[in-house]
């Protein structure tokens, strides 16, 4: 188990009811972590439409996690 910080934006923040929270997880990749968090907070968006960043850099969903990471979850974008 590692400890890290999850941050939520836009619709994810409203569904989670917070903009960030500490998370203890056995997930090895960002994708596994998203599955856990989506189940807990009821996020319905497919990963393929969302984006994720670790420590302020966009990363692939298969990226590994390390203790202390700040993981940012972005719902589907809708600019302009």
């Amino acid at each position: 188990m590692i400890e890290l910080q999850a941050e939520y934006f836009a619709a994810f923040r409203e569904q989670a009811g917070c903009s960030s929270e500490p998370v203890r997880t056995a997930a090895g990749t960002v994708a596994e972590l998203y599955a856990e968090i989506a189940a807990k907070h009821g996020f319905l968006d497919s990963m393929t439409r969302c984006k994720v960043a670790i420590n302020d850099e966009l990363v692939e969903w298969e990226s590994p996690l390390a203790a202390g990471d700040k993981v940012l979850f972005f719902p589907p974008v809708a600019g302009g």
Partner: protein
Amino acid sequence: MDKNHFKLATAALEPDRLKRELLDDKAGAAVCFEGWVRNHHAGEAVTALEYESHAGIAEKEGQRILDEAVSRFEIIAAFGQHRVGRLEIGDCAVWVGVSAAHRGAAFDACRYIIDELKARVPIWKKEHYVEGPSGWVNCATRGAQATHS
């Protein structure tokens, strides 16, 4: 001077001032796109919009898109800006400007940039409706959004 850059803006965009940065004696064509807040979305009357973003990541991804445009198309300069915060009907939410020697490249690059910005840059909008609660424009509507607005 940088000949391509992307920025998020917290104050009103100034398309006329931004456009002047495109000027170049070698340029024969300029194409500019402006996205304005419409009074309707998917059949509902909209009164205002709020844009939220993650500035660091949004500006990096926007810059990457402008760099791609410069390498794919024969253009001279390309700039983009996107508003964050609260906007009213008719306000300019996003501006993209491209100059080139010839117009084909300017059109193609401008369209490439706005299409990619809308698909890839982490910016979210919350719509305020005349009737009913506000809502984030979410997954379900976003597919239509990306092709239609």
